[in-house]
């Protein structure tokens, strides 16, 4: 039994470390992008269009991972794309967590009509196809980073709300909350100092998952040409460009796709790893 638990623990550790390392690396590269990028992300060189990556014959070593149809450096655009992806992930993830958790805590702790109203709202939100909702919101608000972040919050708050509400209801039924009520402590005090700290691990684990989702949503919106500007170096925009020239230049699609894949996988595995780490049974 002890051996079994040991192996589970080791596997969890590796998962957390590997995904954390990738995310850390990408974050550092994103921060340093202006200093380490070999080219300007917007500079076009029509004479160097669709150059293949370095190991393919006909490549120019100055363009390590090749160029797109306008002769822009793929590696540089991936690095600059990481800046946008990680900014959206961080800001949209935190804002979504804040809004969703707050409503979930209120619904789960206050119960009564507050719970009914919030739960009804969640049900209405769940009846929307999320991608369509996102595209609709961007069409309404106009493109740009702020619009993307707002759209993600508006669509995904329900994810936190549902889980946090259930968790808050579980915690409210526990003895320590009853004794706090008997001790005559005010409700806001109980909510902030007793229930919130116990729900926090769940929120943190959900937050990393949400950051991965935010990166995907940004990519989807860039893909349908609704993210920032068509010129801006976003992973989704690169993928959209690569999709149209896939038979002539597969690398324009494959490299940003690979980076996006690893990043989303890492966010998700990091979140799952944290969830298990917080789990008292496995700890």
């Amino acid at each position, binding site marked *: 039994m002890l051996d079994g638990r040991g192996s589970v623990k080791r596997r969890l550790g590796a998962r957390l470390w590997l995904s954390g390392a990738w995310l850390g690396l990408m974050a550092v590269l994103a921060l340093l992008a202006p200093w380490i990028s070999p080219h300007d992300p917007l500079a076009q060189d029509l004479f160097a269009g669709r150059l293949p990556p370095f190991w393919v014959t006909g490549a120019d070593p100055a363009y390590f991972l090749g160029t797109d149809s306008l002769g822009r450096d793929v590696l540089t655009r991936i690095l600059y794309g990481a800046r946008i992806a990680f900014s959206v992930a961080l800001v949209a993830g935190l804002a979504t967590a804040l809004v969703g958790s707050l409503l979930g805590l209120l619904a789960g702790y206050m119960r009564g009509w507050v719970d009914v109203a919030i739960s*009804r*709202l969640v*049900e*209405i939100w*769940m*009846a*929307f*196809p*999320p*991608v*369509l909702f996102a*595209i*609709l*919101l961007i*069409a*309404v608000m*106009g493109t740009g980073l702020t619009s993307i972040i707002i759209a993600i919050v508006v669509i995904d708050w329900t994810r936190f709300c549902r889980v946090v509400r259930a968790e808050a209801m579980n915690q409210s039924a526990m003895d320590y909350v009853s004794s706090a009520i008997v001790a005559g402590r005010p409700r806001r005090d109980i909510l902030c100092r007793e229930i919130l700290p116990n729900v926090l691990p769940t929120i943190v684990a959900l937050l990393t998952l949400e950051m*991965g*989702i935010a990166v*995907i949503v940004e*990519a*989807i919106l860039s*893909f*349908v040409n609704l993210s920032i500007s068509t010129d801006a170096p976003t992973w989704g925009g690169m*993928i959209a460009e690569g*999709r149209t020239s*896939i*038979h002539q230049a*597969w690398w324009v*699609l*494959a490299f940003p*796709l690979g980076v*996006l*894949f690893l990043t*989303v*996988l890492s966010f*998700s*595995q990091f979140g*799952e790893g944290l969830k298990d780490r917080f789990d008292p049974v496995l700890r």
Partner: protein
Amino acid sequence: MKLLRATLLRLLTMSVTLIGVAVVVFFVIRVVPGNPIAMMLPPGATEDDVARLTALYGLDKSIVEQFVIWLGGVLQGDFGTSISLRQPVMPLVLGRLPATLELAIFALVIAVIVGGALALTGVRHRETRTETAVDVANGVGLSIPDFLWALILIVLFGVLMPIFHISGRISPSLDLPFVTQFYVFESVARLRFDLWWDLLKHMFMPALALAIPLAAIISQLLKQSLKETMHLDYVTLSRTKGYSENHVILSEALPNAMLPTLTLIGVQFTFLIGGTVIIERLFSYEGLGNMAIDAVINRDLPLIQGIVIVFALLFTIINLLVDMMYAVLNPRLRHA
């Protein structure tokens, strides 16, 4: 009596949800700054032309008035006229819906087969490397959304190993005898298996992209329920009777372990349908989702409203069916 009241209550909450969706979408898209009328007129149009068309589509009235008129029409089955396509919305939507439903159902079938097979393999070879491999596959399948799977499939099977079609619903060179929009069903009914095969070759990539995350969820939950069931006394009993391990898993454990997975599939199926919007776009598949994105880009307000309502209706109906199925299959609820 009790059942009747529960059903009525259920239908009431369903209509509240649908009206909520209608209100949200109606008011959200009317904050749009772009003028759809100006976009559909040629550059030389006068102010008068704009005013006439605005009045024609009822866009000169107040938002609340517009909503009441629109809702009145919707209750009679009239969703207005598409601005960009200049045709009634309902026939347009109903013309595209079958393509989306066929894609979603095909994806569901793949997900159930793959997910079920993975779960059974994992349980049959539990506590071995095979189970670990199944767990890893589930983890990766769950972490990556359909949009990314679609792109990966395009690179792998559309470009590196071009086996499947990665664009469209059916080869444009084929002669189509269809009278309905349910091409897959109709081609089978007409015994035109050449068309059927062409349709499947187009649908396989988008359907697989939609199916992978769902297959992972099915596999994970079914495997967990199966493993729990394997420890129950009646399973041990049938094993001591000398039945083979395969028989014990398939005939004894599976029927009892299936229920939670079935409910989950229902809920997840609505997510899968939501995913068709972007997947259809990626594969230029002519379904409802692809039409929806065009409608948003063209600021076609009546068409957007119609499509969103149809999606919401589809989701609520599926949820209702899942609950009914659960009530029928769960012995504890059946006798209550």
